[in-house]
């Protein structure tokens, strides 16, 4: 495998992890505009542990995720008392606050960036990404997934059905933030260097765009969104500036034409029906 292909695949794996981090709260009807901030927490905490306490990488990354989750819990519990746009605004503020704070923390390099002592290659990154996808997939095949969808579709009805709406929203948000933290850790250890300015609002916005572009009704949506937006710009490499223009224009057009995102629940149902028909057709065919 060429270095270029490997680089693209690593980026894809990390973007997929970020996308699932943003997907979980969206699936519960809340928007996280501070994904980059949680990723930064995961990146810096795991890198710090690894450099200063000789924690093994494979342990440091989940700890970074847990740290991001704890921060998410601290913010979500007070903010989710209110409804609507407030969590989105609070996460926006938190993301910027995390970035600005890290810029001023000299023991992790401040504005100069922070070199990371350990390195992980594509197999480890891809392994983490695959397990995140499988975990979220499994999670959504349980009662939890059904409950989250109910909360997303209609909070009032979900409440009447006896679901603890707020608890589900908090759990989805905290889990998503922890996943984003893991993504940050993967980024840190693969590139061996992190700087606070990378984890800015543009990153958060891009990740949210992946998710809504891919579709939030099914677990496959973020995977497609992240894959398309990682691979498409690579094909459009002609001009670095125009990549973002095309990226944004595609999102705007798709949001108008297909506001539910590319992969919708109906599409998934149709596809699975198609596969079943195909299988039945073959088995019923006379020998």
């Amino acid at each position, binding site marked *: 495998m060429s270095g270029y292909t490997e680089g693209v695949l690593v980026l894809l794996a990390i973007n997929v992890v970020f996308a699932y981090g943003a997907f979980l709260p969206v699936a519960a009807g809340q928007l996280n505009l501070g994904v980059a901030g949680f990723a930064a927490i995961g990146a810096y905490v795991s890198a710090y542990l690894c450099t200063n306490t000789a924690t093994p990488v494979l342990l440091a990354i989940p700890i970074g995720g847990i740290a991001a989750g704890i921060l998410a819990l601290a913010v979500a519990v007070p903010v989710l008392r209110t409804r609507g746009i407030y969590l989105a605004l609070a996460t926006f503020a938190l993301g*910027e606050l995390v970035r600005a704070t890290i810029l*001023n923390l000299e023991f992790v390099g401040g504005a100069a960036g922070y070199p990371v002592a350990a390195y992980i290659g594509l197999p480890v990154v891809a392994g983490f990404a695959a397990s995140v996808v499988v975990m979220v997939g499994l999670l959504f095949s349980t009662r939890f997934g059904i409950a989250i969808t109910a909360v997303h579709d209609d909070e009032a009805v979900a409440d009447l059905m006896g679901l603890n709406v707020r608890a589900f929203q908090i759990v989805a948000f905290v889990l998503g933030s922890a996943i984003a933290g893991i993504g940050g850790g993967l980024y840190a250890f693969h590139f061996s260097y992190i700087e606070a300015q990378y984890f800015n609002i543009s990153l958060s916005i891009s990740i949210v*765009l992946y998710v809504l572009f891919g579709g939030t009704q099914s677990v496959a949506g973020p995977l497609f969104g992240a894959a398309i937006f990682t691979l498409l710009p690579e094909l459009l490499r002609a001009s670095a500036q125009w990549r973002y223009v095309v990226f944004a224009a595609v999102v705007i057009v798709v949001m*108008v034409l297909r506001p539910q995102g590319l992969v919708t629940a109906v599409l998934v149902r149709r596809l699975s029906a198609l596969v079943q028909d195909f299988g039945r057709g073959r088995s019923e065919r006379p020998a």
Partner: protein
Amino acid sequence: MLGSIYAMLGVALTLSIGILRFLNFSIPALFMIGGMVTWALVHAGVPWPVAALAALAAGALVALIVEAFTWRWMRTAGPFIPLVSSMAFLILFEHLAVANFGSDLQTLPPLFGRGVDWRVGHLVVSIPQLAGLAISVAMVAALSLTLARTQMGRGLRTIAEDSDTALLLGVEVGRLVPLVFVISGVFAALAGVLFALNYRQVDPFMGEALGLKGISAMVVGGMGNVWGAIAGGIIIGLVEVLSIGFFGADFVDISVYGLLLFILIVRPTGLFGGAEMGVRA
């Protein structure tokens, strides 16, 4: 002085969220467009008042384009779709500006002679800055009167309460909503023009650096409250100046976004907000 820039941005954002319940992330981009257009025209030799007016017109026009791709589709889509599209617009316009003008900081020539500073004792007051402040206050006052007194303002306040009911009551929602976008676009572009004329430097990412502080101004003042946004802008400006004074320039973002988060946790309706959202004149 930055406070009045934040205040104008806060007004633009608060109009959108108060009337349409739409957090319009393209406002920072409109701010940047206001600044960049002013710079580009002045750079091309156009007199600055003409450039400023052209920038306002550009802001209004681009706001209409954003409207065509966001609000119009809101009814059939989830609540985040217009928000997400407006973020995509932010990225789109930023990188269009980079593609056209490069990502460097551009500098405007000094437009006003040396005699424009007004000295009162030790204080140096720049007349252009003062004029900018006066224009902002006048425009907000006009907006506030329009919302409170006119037929159009009543229509807008009805939409703020409930857009479906407004439609049933014969309010021309389809005609008024683009107007909201145009007004907020002009306010955002005006902030950009004032910034370009006073600080004489613009760049494609000025929207992210400054425009997003407008969100803080809006929240601190209370979402949907026009005068609250003004107060919020001034508070954010003061917090910046104070944190530079006490802790140094690096702590500005920590203070501003820390304050935003604190307000959201402790008093999400903002300092001057009531219990419910809506435009209060």
